């Protein structure tokens, strides 16, 4: 299609006529220029219908051309809900309107426009809830609702994130924002100024009343801003949200930048507001500012013959802009009964333009097919009511509205600004700004161009002074002489279709009906009507909704108030929020050794641990069984470097441990270790490990793998609170740790150390420091798996060397690495508990069979008071060992299957496994005390509902006399 609506070349236009861009919309071929947005290119080509509305599928065209409405919302391949008004045209784009069925023109859903009387506000609450049919209706609703389509094969988009800092951030590079930037920077502040438009200048670039010379002041400011060494001007980027302490999310089409400012100036301007009259949503009914943007940014003639509806001087200036660029202005219709004529009005009168005051448009007359405007029906308008008797029609192909503004105060609200309704300017303005937040320009209720510059200077200077640059300048900003916003730009019509919220297809009547039903405060009204809940979040509808409600309940707008404005200012793609994501994965120093030995890895929190080591021609269970056998009968080696490894040093180190663990450590001999259980304040077991004493004032201790981070954090918190004379160091990542276990472990270790490994010199539960394979090491004789063994801790960088040395030394004994699964079975055979698996969020040490470790006679430990109380109560549950009947043949119970007694839940299985050494299924179960007696049988219900009998069995199941792991007494 030809560019038949393109104007001759205009100075400062945003399009580059040297680069034409071919694209498709709804299967048709179009052409635009580089710098065009999708909407401007389509409009230039004569395409008036850009989309269909959400509820009634009415045709819609350009309305704000500023992303304040979503009339032009498009699907572009994998991108959905693309805002055509502000998305730059790209070569080869294939676009279609969202939310149509079978194309923009056909769209059979447009029948809904004729059924609208059946579908008043909240109609869906009043029907469709028959139990049988609701699921089908829901499917219909879901299909009709929703806008674009998600393409399920879209790949994950990884985007960068940027961080920035500045003294003063200015949001909005219009006249007041530019003035603010200069004032702040001139006082020495480092300034960032952002604007969502492709180019800076804001309304100063297009609200010029036909005279290009009027741009000069803005252009001069812009030149100074660009040249200023302390100002960074960023365009095509919007402030999506304001967060605590001036933390601002800035979003462009590639990334999110998180900026911390010392002060913020909001110069975001205002949203032009529609007038409400019948068919005010027809393609061709546009805001004045939209018409101006079309002309001055994209050199597009908005229409041929216009009726201008206005209620302020802006409207007359728009009329001049139109006339200068070849649009015939058929009439200017002013809602106001009386006003002081502005310069533009005088000029228009001189040109002989037809003008009506105290007059409104009651209806935009549609073309056949309703895809455009054929005329405006105007009528006398007094006290907010149109006089139908005076109605007459003026033929036109476009209606331009300029009846008022609403502040773009979203970020101000998010920052916690208290706003008040200003009767003079008929809008909300900042009343009390939070510290470090400033506002200027239209968002501050200042509309006169020169006044805006002064207001910007005032705010910029104050912001710079706030952060310590210069003195706050005394600037007097003249008071507005008249309001730019009309208090009641709303015209009732018996046939409705006078839209307030274009996103949600809400008509004037919908608000009246909602209030009639009792939704008569602004929050309830919003929720019942869904006003402002669409993608443009009320930018073009909240103000009129508020005016309507105020009139319906006979209150002042100030009493009605506003709803809460939350982030985001414009919607933000999930990919930009997500960035690249962050997935810490921790590997022990021996990771590659495990991999080379065939390890099958599993996740343990952030860590990767070998679950078992795969062997050729053997399945998982066989591999695990062989690993178990090797530990029981020969020697095995396991990487336990993921355990939390902490050190505490200082005169009060022992006292600290006494407080945080349930056992006694003050009397622990130097060179010895002791099992350690930690409870929370309610007496619930939260972690366990081993505490070793290296010196009077020096302990080394371990935590569980999963608890390491939280325990270190909690101990640090407690030490901060208690202020004890000791320091805690987290060595978890700094140390590697290996457990060498099995009857042959001493012989293996003897080959690589000169330490005296005799039982007398290095008894069970002792800790020794010495060299292993030449590496300085701490060795503990402890045995989670129930065999003679050594847990050897060395600096992480020596972990591989230690591993290699032990594997080499063990090879004559057939040493094999074993994984987490073998260890789990080995410990189960010993009846050792795993905190978090055999215990849960309510388990006390008494219930877990760890009562022996609790020293209630200590003066204090965390959880002691609770345990004293709990200890006096009858026990509710107990952890017991159990065995299944040897003859059990069917499927085995699994962990967390329930114990059922007399038809009631009486416990659950916490651990279970097949012990080939004991030739039985063994396990641990948390059961009621009556089922915990020795030799008691109980029933476990498995997934298929059948019951399996288990018998309470004392633990350890294996080697109950502990002969394997320690020397003869």
């Amino acid at each position, binding site marked *: 299609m030809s560019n038949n609506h393109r104007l001759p070349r205009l100075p400062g236009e945003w399009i580059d006529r040297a680069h034409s861009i071919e694209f498709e919309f709804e299967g048709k071929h179009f052409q635009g220029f580089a710098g065009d947005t999708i909407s401007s290119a389509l409009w230039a080509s004569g395409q008036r219908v850009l989309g269909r509305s959400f509820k009634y599928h009415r045709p819609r065209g350009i309305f704000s051309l500023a992303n304040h409405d979503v009339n032009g919302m498009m699907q572009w391949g994998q991108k959905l809900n693309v805002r055509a008004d502000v998305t730059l045209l790209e070569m080869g784009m294939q676009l279609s309107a969202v939310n149509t069925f079978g194309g923009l023109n056909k769209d059979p859903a447009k029948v809904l426009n004729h059924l609208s009387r059946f579908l008043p506000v909240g109609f869906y609450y009043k029907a469709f809830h028959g139990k049988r049919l609701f699921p089908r209706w829901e499917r219909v609703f879901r299909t009709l609702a929703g806008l674009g389509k998600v393409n399920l094969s879209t790949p994950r988009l990884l985007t960068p994130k940027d961080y920035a800092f500045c003294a003063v951030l200015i949001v909005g590079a219009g006249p007041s924002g530019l003035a603010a930037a200069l004032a702040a920077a001139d006082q020495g502040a480092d300034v960032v100024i952002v604007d969502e438009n492709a180019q800076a200048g804001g309304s100063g670039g297009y609200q010029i009343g036909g005279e290009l010379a009027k741009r000069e002041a803005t252009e001069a400011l812009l030149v100074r801003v660009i040249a200023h060494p302390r100002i960074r001007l960023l365009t095509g980027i919007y402030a999506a949200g304001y967060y605590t302490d001036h933390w601002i999310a800035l979003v462009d089409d590639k990334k999110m930048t998180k900026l911390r400012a010392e002060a913020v100036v909001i110069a975001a301007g205002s949203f032009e507001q529609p007038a409400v009259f019948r068919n005010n949503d027809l393609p061709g009914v546009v805001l004045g500012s939209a018409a101006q943007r079309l002309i001055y940014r994209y050199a597009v003639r908005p229409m041929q013959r216009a009726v201008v509806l206005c209620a302020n001087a802006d409207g007359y200036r728009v009329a001049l802009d139109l006339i200068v660029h070849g649009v015939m202005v058929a009439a200017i219709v002013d809602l106001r009964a009386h006003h002081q004529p502005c310069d533009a009005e005088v000029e228009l009168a001189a040109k002989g333009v037809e003008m009506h005051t105290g007059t409104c448009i009651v209806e935009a007359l549609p073309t056949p097919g309703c895809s455009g405007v054929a005329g405006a029906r105007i009528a006398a308008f007094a006290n907010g009511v149109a006089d139908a008797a005076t109605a007459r029609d003026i033929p036109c192909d476009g209606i331009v509205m300029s009846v008022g503004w609403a502040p773009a105060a979203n970020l101000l609200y998010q920052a916690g600004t208290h706003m008040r309704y200003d009767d003079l300017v008929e809008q909300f303005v900042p009343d009390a700004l939070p510290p470090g937040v400033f506002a200027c320009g239209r968002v501050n209720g200042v509309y006169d161009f020169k006044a805006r510059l002064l207001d910007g200077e005032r705010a910029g200077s104050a912001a710079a002074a706030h952060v310590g640059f210069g003195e706050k300048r005394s600037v007097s900003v003249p008071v507005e002489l008249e309001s730019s916003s009309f208090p009641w730009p709303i015209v009732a019509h018996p046939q409705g279709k006078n839209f307030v919220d274009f996103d949600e297809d809400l008509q004037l009547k919908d608000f009246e009906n909602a209030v009639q039903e009792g939704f008569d405060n602004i929050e309830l009204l919003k929720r019942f009507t869904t006003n402002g809940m669409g993608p443009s979040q009320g930018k073009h509808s909240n103000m009129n909704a508020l005016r309507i409600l105020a009139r319906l309940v006979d209150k002042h707008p100030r009493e009605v108030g506003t709803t809460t404005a939350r982030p985001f200012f414009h919607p933000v793609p999930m990919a930009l929020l997500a960035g690249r994501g962050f997935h810490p994965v921790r590997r022990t120093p021996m990771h590659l050794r495990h991999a080379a030995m065939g390890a099958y890895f599993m996740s343990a929190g952030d860590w990767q641990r070998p679950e078992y080591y795969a062997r050729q021609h053997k399945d998982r269970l066989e591999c695990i069984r062989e690993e178990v056998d090797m530990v029981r009968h020969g020697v095995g080696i396991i990487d336990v470097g993921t355990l939390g490894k902490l050190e505490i040093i200082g005169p009060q180190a022992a006292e600290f441990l006494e407080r945080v663990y349930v056992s006694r450590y003050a009397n622990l001999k130097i060179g010895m270790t002791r099992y350690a259980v930690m409870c929370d304040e309610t007496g619930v077991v939260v972690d366990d490990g081993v505490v070793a004493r290296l010196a009077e004032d020096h302990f080394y201790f371990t935590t569980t793998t999963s608890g390491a981070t939280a325990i270190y954090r909690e101990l640090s918190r407690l030490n901060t609170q208690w202020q004890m004379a000791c320091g805690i160091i987290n060595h978890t990542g700094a140390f590697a740790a290996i457990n060498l276990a099995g009857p042959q472990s001493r012989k293996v270790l003897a080959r690589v150390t000169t330490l005296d490994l005799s039982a007398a010199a290095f008894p069970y539960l002792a800790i020794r420091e010495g060299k292993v394979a030449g590496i300085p090491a701490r060795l503990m004789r402890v045995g989670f798996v129930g065999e003679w063994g050594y847990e050897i801790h060395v600096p992480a960088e020596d972990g591989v060397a230690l591993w290699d040395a032990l594997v080499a030394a063990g090879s004559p004994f057939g040493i094999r690495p074993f994984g987490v699964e073998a260890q789990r079975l080995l410990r189960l055979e010993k009846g050792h508990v795993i905190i978090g698996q055999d215990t849960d969020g309510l388990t006390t040490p008494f219930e877990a069979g760890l009562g022996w470790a609790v020293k209630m006679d200590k003066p204090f430990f965390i959880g002691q008071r609770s345990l004293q109380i709990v200890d006096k109560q009858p026990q509710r549950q107990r952890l017991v060992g159990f065995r299944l009947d040897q003859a059990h043949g069917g499927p085995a119970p699994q962990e967390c299957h329930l114990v*059922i007694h007399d038809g009631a839940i009486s416990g659950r299985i916490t651990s279970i496994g097949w012990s080939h050494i004991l030739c039985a299924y063994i396990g641990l179960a948390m059961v009621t005390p009556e089922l915990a007696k020795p030799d008691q049988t109980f029933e476990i219900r498995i*997934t298929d509902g059948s019951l399996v009998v288990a018998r309470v069995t004392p633990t350890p199941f294996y080697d109950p006399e502990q002969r394997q792991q320690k020397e003869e007494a």
Partner: protein
Amino acid sequence: MPWRLLRFVTSGKHPEPQMFTHHDGLKKVYDAVIIGAGGHGLAAAYYLARDHGMTNVCVLEKGYIGGGNTGRNTTIIRSNYITPEGVQFYDTSVKLWQDLSQDFDLNLFYATRGHYTLAHTDAALRTMRWRAEVNKHCGVESEVVGPEELRREIPMMDMSCGGHAPIIGALYHAPGAIARHDAVAWGYGRGADQRGVQIHQQTEVLGIEVTAGRVSGVRTSRGFIATSKVLCAVAGSTPRILDMIGVRSPIYIHPLQAMVSEPMKPWLDPILVSGSLHVYISQSARGELVLGASLDPYELHSTRSTLDFTEGLAAHMLELFPFLSHVKIVRQWAGMADMTPDFAPIMGKTPIEGFYLDAGWGTWGFKATPVSGKTMAHTMVTDTPHPLITGFSLDRFRNYALTGEKGAASVGH
């Protein structure tokens, strides 16, 4: 199109009566005063009037109907808890929910979608099995499902989670549902209003009069009310009300945040939760994705939003559904959750005679709206805790008789 919509055309005027009656002032005496016109408070009022004939009742609301957590939550309704007390309680609620649109003659968009709690670790899968077994024992439909079924039912999900946290199974709970939250408050409010209950919005409670250990009245911003029964149902403001009568509770207020996307055509039917990734998602009838995550980790009496919440939630959600990269988030918000140590509510009597508590709803209150109303109404009328709520009494903390729901409530809400 249902015939019921015909009346909108045949009638000259909008044929709908007012949902909530205007009252010029407060009465001097009410048989019961309910603080909080959220779902819970209005439900209690509704059942007091409907089931017990107690209609000289007022509901006091500082803001507006349903303006607290009723209007801020992500509307997931389920009963797959871990304790038998919890399962029976929430199952009763689900059954009430299923008939509620009919009871009210108001479409609550109660949509049974099915609910999956994804397991990425053995430990998570063990907890799923525990919940499934307890649920089945209580007659609630839950089962552990494997990766094959997940691939079949949610084929668009990346089972490897970007390779970071592969999904190994899930707890499937067929009755899982969502509903239109605001409408629930309106339905209960209208039902109570029709039966004579007075709802007073923009009426703040300033103090509670206690005489000899008994409630005797309520001081409000619009005057004094004499009453012998007060129900406190104020979610995140519970500690402030309890301070007025000197009752201590172990409640801490944490913010809970959520966000919602632009609408899109339907692609996701069930509700999905991942405890390991700390995220959950459902698609509303309007086509928006409703997204949430776990609580903010610190105490704060505020409904402010944070940017890092949206960043973390989006990053984790794209692990499950990478194709949402271009989907835009339109709005984020927060509510104040009153958290209890065991993740179960606090319901029933208090040391002050005539003062009843419906609190500790943390992040799990919306689904309990019907059953909390019903059981609290019973408790207020009989002055005896309803059998379904004995496990949730305030004195359980003193007695170390907690009802541990952490495993089933911490992210799933």
